């Protein structure tokens, strides 16, 4: 009796397992079964798809394919025509006039006009897009539609970085006929968007996948692939496994530790880039709190800089991905090219001498605050500082607490921060050095660096029009920064993107899939 009961249970269990394996063993889950579709992995659900009301990289990574800016930025970050087919800048740089493409239609079939541009800037971008608001609101006088295909931007003063601020990441243009008169933050079109971009919206399954289809009427020519699917895969390791299993085609980033393994995979190609929807040309930086007595003497800051082996950081933490900075501003910004600067080199003997001269009190412990993503950097730096007699206590904080401690309360000795320099120093670098941006604003002047000459130089550089004049000014700015060392510039970071070889032809930047082909 008992035996037969157990036998029954066993056969039931065996049947269930067999049935399950039969069920699960079938079906092709690889992307090769849909040759004209690109499947891209993203780390988090964007929440909404309106890129004009946020600078969040999560939103822009996904939503930018649906929209356009007045201009695009090419691989070298130079402005190229997009919704504007041409433009003129008046002699003193106070007036920008854009001639728009004709015949462009929104995905719902309505025509795109200059009124859409005026609405997007006046009602949305200058209020809700933090970066555009911060850089333009004080200098922009008005945005006017001269006619349906001409827009003028009038500035209070000559403003040279403007063309770098008009791509889809900085200034996406929204359809006025769907947004006007409604709150752009709560519009239903934020999750059922209508744009002018190379792909049009199809469906959005929260935290699962977002689907786009090719825009056959795209003014730049329809994309080669028929569809893009964004899959939300929060764990970076799972993303890599999904790529290897052929279940996704494209990764926006590969963790440094996994790159070596992927390099050995003949089905995968990788490429490096400094351009990202969340930030471009980013620099990992160690900030000194100059309000702390420990750092009032520049010799201490210089000694710490000499104690840090930046090449070791590049090789051991980033496995060679990135660059050791030769100047305070990213080398990817041509305007900021600064040859001949002497950044402190790794020299522990010199470091020890400087500490002794400055009377560094042995046993003093410095608080180094950081986000968990910089843990490996900080552990290596702590070991390097210990070698010259400086003790650092690491404090790993989640972003909200980090911002509160470093920028609101200024309660730290040193902090590790990634400053994305952007494509023009006025947009991404100024905030890091001018005294007016010290205080309760995240990712501003963390060091608390105050130098009237520096403030004035940034004001001058923003008004200059001639590139050669601007370059000279930024060189001067960088000389001052190297002399005063409010920061140590540790690494120009790069993202490693990866894709299956069945897909190729990806562009750099926000419209990465517009030129892609999959087979």
């Amino acid at each position: 009796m008992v035996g037969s009961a157990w036998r029954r249970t066993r056969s039931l269990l065996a049947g269930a397992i067999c049935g399950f394996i039969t069920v699960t063993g079938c079906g092709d889950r690889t992307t090769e079964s849909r040759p004209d579709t690109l499947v891209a992995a993203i780390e988090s659900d964007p929440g909404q798809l309106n890129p004009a009301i946020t600078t969040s990289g999560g939103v822009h990574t996904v939503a930018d394919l649906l929209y356009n800016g007045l201009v695009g930025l090419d691989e070298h970050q130079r402005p190229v025509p997009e919704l504007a087919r041409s433009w003129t800048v008046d002699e003193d740089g106070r007036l920008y006039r854009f001639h728009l493409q004709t015949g462009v239609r929104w995905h719902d079939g309505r025509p795109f006009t200059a009124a859409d541009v005026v609405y997007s800037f006046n009602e949305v971008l200058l209020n809700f897009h933090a970066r555009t608001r911060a850089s333009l609101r004080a200098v922009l006088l008005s945005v006017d539609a001269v006619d349906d295909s001409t827009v003028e931007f009038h500035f209070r003063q000559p403003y040279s970085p403007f063309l770098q601020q008009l791509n889809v990441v900085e200034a996406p243009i929204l359809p006025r006929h769907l947004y006007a008169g409604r709150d752009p933050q709560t519009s239903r079109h934020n999750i059922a968007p209508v744009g002018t971009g190379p792909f049009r919206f199809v469906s959005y399954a929260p935290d699962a996948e977002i689907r786009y289809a090719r825009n056959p009427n795209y003014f730049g020519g329809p994309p080669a692939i028929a569809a893009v699917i964004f899959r939300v895969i929060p764990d970076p390791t799972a993303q890599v496994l999904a790529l290897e299993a052929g279940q996704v085609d494209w990764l926006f980033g590969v963790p440094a530790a996994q790159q070596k393994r992927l390099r050995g995979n003949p089905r995968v190609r990788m490429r490096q880039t400094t351009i990202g929807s969340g930030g471009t040309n980013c620099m990992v930086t160690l900030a000194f709190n100059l309000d702390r007595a420990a750092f009032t003497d520049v010799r201490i800051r210089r000694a710490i800089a000499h104690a840090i082996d930046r090449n070791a950081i590049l090789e051991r933490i980033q496995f060679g991905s990135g660059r050791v900075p030769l100047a305070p501003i990213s080398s990817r910004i041509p305007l900021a090219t600064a040859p001949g600067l002497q950044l402190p080199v790794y020299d522990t003997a010199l470091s020890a001498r400087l500490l002794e001269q400055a009377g560094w009190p042995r046993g003093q412990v410095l608080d180094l605050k950081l986000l968990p993503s910089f843990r490996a950097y900080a552990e290596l730096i702590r070991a390097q500082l210990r070698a010259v007699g400086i003790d650092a206590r690491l404090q790993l904080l989640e972003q909200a607490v980090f911002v509160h401690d470093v920028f609101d309360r200024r309660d730290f000795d040193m902090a590790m921060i990634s400053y994305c320099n952007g494509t023009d120093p006025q947009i991404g670098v100024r905030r890091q050095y001018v005294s007016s941006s010290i205080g309760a604003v995240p990712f501003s002047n963390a060091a608390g660096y105050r130098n009237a000459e520096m403030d004035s130089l940034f004001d001058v550089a923003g008004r200059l029009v001639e590139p050669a004049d601007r370059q000279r000014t930024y060189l001067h700015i960088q000389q001052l920064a190297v002399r005063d060392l409010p920061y140590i510039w540790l690494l120009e970071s790069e993202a490693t993107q990866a894709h299956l070889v069945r897909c190729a032809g990806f562009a750099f930047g926000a419209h990465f899939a517009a030129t892609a082909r999959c087979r």
Partner: protein
Amino acid sequence: MMRYLVRRLLLVPLTVMAIVTISFIMIHAAPGDPVLALAGEHGDRAYYEFMRERFGFDDPLPTRFVTYASRVLRGDFGNSYVQGRSAAALIAERVPATLLLTASALVLGALVSIPLGLWTARRAGGRWDGFVNFFALTLYSMPLFWVGQMAVVVFAARMGWLPVEGIATAGSDATGIHRVTDLLQHLALPAVVLASHEIAVLTRLVRSGVAQELGRDHVRMARASGLSERVILLRHALPRPMLTVVTVVGTRIGQLFAGALVVEIVFGWPGMGRLLLSALQARDAPILLAFFFLVSCSVVIANLVADVIYAAIDPRIRYG
């Protein structure tokens, strides 16, 4: 019994209100700002002031609490600061996936642990009992995150039996039985991983309870009267340990949700856990408070249900 039930039901809103009030105070006392999630690293002072005023962050905390509480009483949990959509709707979109995952794990846990516990109880002190005990302890000691990643590496990436991530195949438009099959394929690994801790805990509970019962007089009596081993096990040895199992399952609902958060991240499962995590990082109070409201209601009600089942399966228990 009825009086007891009414008394317990009356306590539900009070408990939930207390949890929501404490959560409200804790969320707003924590450093950080949802504006940061919108601004990224480039907002200026004017932007922060504009957004804070828009969201009403400048009002005193008691005023904000009164506004919030009066809205909640009308069933309105407010809009997410970051996503601009109704917090209740955002959570509701993700409830089915989380319920499917947790319910599957719970059912799987019971289906595996009860027979396994009975089987090992009959072999108490033997080789197989030791092995299962060791296996259960090992499973329980391993973090779910690691178990999940190993499961993905072995069963999805290496063997290719199951999908690596998600709730459905990318771009799948399958309907009917194909859709169900696709869903089962995607559910299999996350459900098994989430169930692993339940299996470990419940197997040991059933095993020790039943083994103890098997040595008691009433079981010896049943055996002496010639009842079959199956009847002895199921009718005489199992019921009393099941009381403990039901109680433990009731108290583990909260842990199950916490485990689901981890599993959802590893497997890209579109449930509430990931929404909660992003809301926590962004200090998106409307989502967090709506979530706490929902979870506290679930836990309080689950405990109530456990107590009722307890009374139903144990005739000695009478609530008055």
